């Protein structure tokens, strides 16, 4: 059995929730004050996901970088691995907003897309 301390970010109260469970099963929850916190803590325990944002090199433009994001949240534990992959990528102008830079990164189903524009 594993135990995780989770700070709920659904509202400003920021309940400290203690979650106990194994793999995909939550056995007990303690410290949440509402039902939304329960759902948040369960997801955070089973599989925390995050939107990844970073930058990608642009070759031959006045601006050396273009900001990018994952168009869906990616597993939190894969963030650094995604970064290692994105580091090797570069693009040439023009780049439009929401243009896909890296499709389906690490098989997560999330695309890395541009959030800025270089015209």
């Amino acid at each position, binding site marked *: 059995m594993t135990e995780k301390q989770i*700070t709920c*970010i659904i509202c400003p*109260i920021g309940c400290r929730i203690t979650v106990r469970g194994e793999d995909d099963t939550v056995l007990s929850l303690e410290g949440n004050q509402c039902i939304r916190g329960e759902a948040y803590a369960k997801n955070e325990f089973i599989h925390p996901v*995050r939107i990844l944002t*970073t930058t990608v090199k642009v070759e031959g433009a*006045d601006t050396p970088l273009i900001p990018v994001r994952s168009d869906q949240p990616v597993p939190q534990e894969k963030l650094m691995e995604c970064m290692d992959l994105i580091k090797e990528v570069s693009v040439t102008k023009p780049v439009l907003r929401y243009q896909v830079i890296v499709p389906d990164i690490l098989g997560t189903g999330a695309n890395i897309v541009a959030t800025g524009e270089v015209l």
Partner: protein
Amino acid sequence: MAAAVSAKKQGAKQVLVIERDSSLGGILQQCIHPGFGLSYYDEELTGPEYAGRFIRQAQELGVKTLLNSMVLEVLPDGTVICTNAEYGITTVRAKSVVLAMGCRERTRGNIQIPGTRPAGIYTAGAAQRLINRQNEMVGRRVVILGSGDIGMIMARRMTLEGAQVVAVVEIMDFLAGLTRNRVQCLDDFGIPLLLSHTVTRVMGNRRVEGVCVARVDENKKPILETEEFYPCDTLLLSVGLIPENELSRTAHVEMSAITGGPVVNQCMQTSVPCLFACGNVVHVNDLVDNVSWESEVAGREAARYAMGQLPQSAGTVTCEPGNNVRYICPQHIALTEEKAEVDLYFRVKLPEEKVRIRLLCNGKELGKKSAIKVNPGEMEHIKVSMSDLTAGKLEVHVAKGV
């Protein structure tokens, strides 16, 4: 941008945005992280996306822009003197002007950290610009002073870029920024947060070699026996923001000593009638969504002023911070015949749980609401309708109780 869009929508014939940078969007361009627009657009956007929406709207509505242009002076009659490489010194005559210069970061000089003066000390925002827009990495082993949002966001950003963030050090006994940033920026990466601690000394000759960190007592004085050396090559400062009001002062706009920005009424109008102001130049905001709403008011009212449609005021209500309230924006309300709702934004002095917020006009209670938690880092908001107000004073009180 929000003010320009709103001024156009209100019917202003010509709207010009004068920008110092080479592109539009201001600080949002370097804020590549998500978290913007949760209330304004009901979705989570990054800074460039949020700015992009306003830029597109401005272009569609025919807002003109002057980039790479530095405003040297704004005169109390609405004349703006600016300079750029193409036009030289240029004078723009406007019927009304919206001041939207934003804010600056407090620096090492502002907080007087003792020690040597090596390379490797950056404000968090300067480091953010270098990393996110200019492709320059600022360091490998980092201590961050201040738990403001930019500091925490940079802790995550530096970690993602391969640096090691040794600690985030905060002098107060509570977090300065938003809780969600602590969770997603510090806890996610196991970055330690040291509350009630401060940096007491910077060491290193050419480059930062480390900093001393000590616990502080209840008067925020460092306890020397607790001083510890943290080896690092970079110190980032996230120790507060100051509204950037050089131009407002030169234009003889009345300033508030508490916010560091112009005193405004509910139209975001300053003491100089043709000058309006919005965003971080008025008071430092934690959410861009609030800035956009406030700027819409400034743009709309500046347009009405230019078109001669702003009604005469029949009296003034002064907004006075009551119990546990540091300031209220706007500072006063010009009473008119118009049926309007006025949004009051305010910050508390100290964190408190389970509070009641009360709104009193000349002693009469006009509204109340309860909040589960208030925090100086998170701006609070309450509405009042103009028709309920009478000339005199309007107080906001925050006190424990339900």
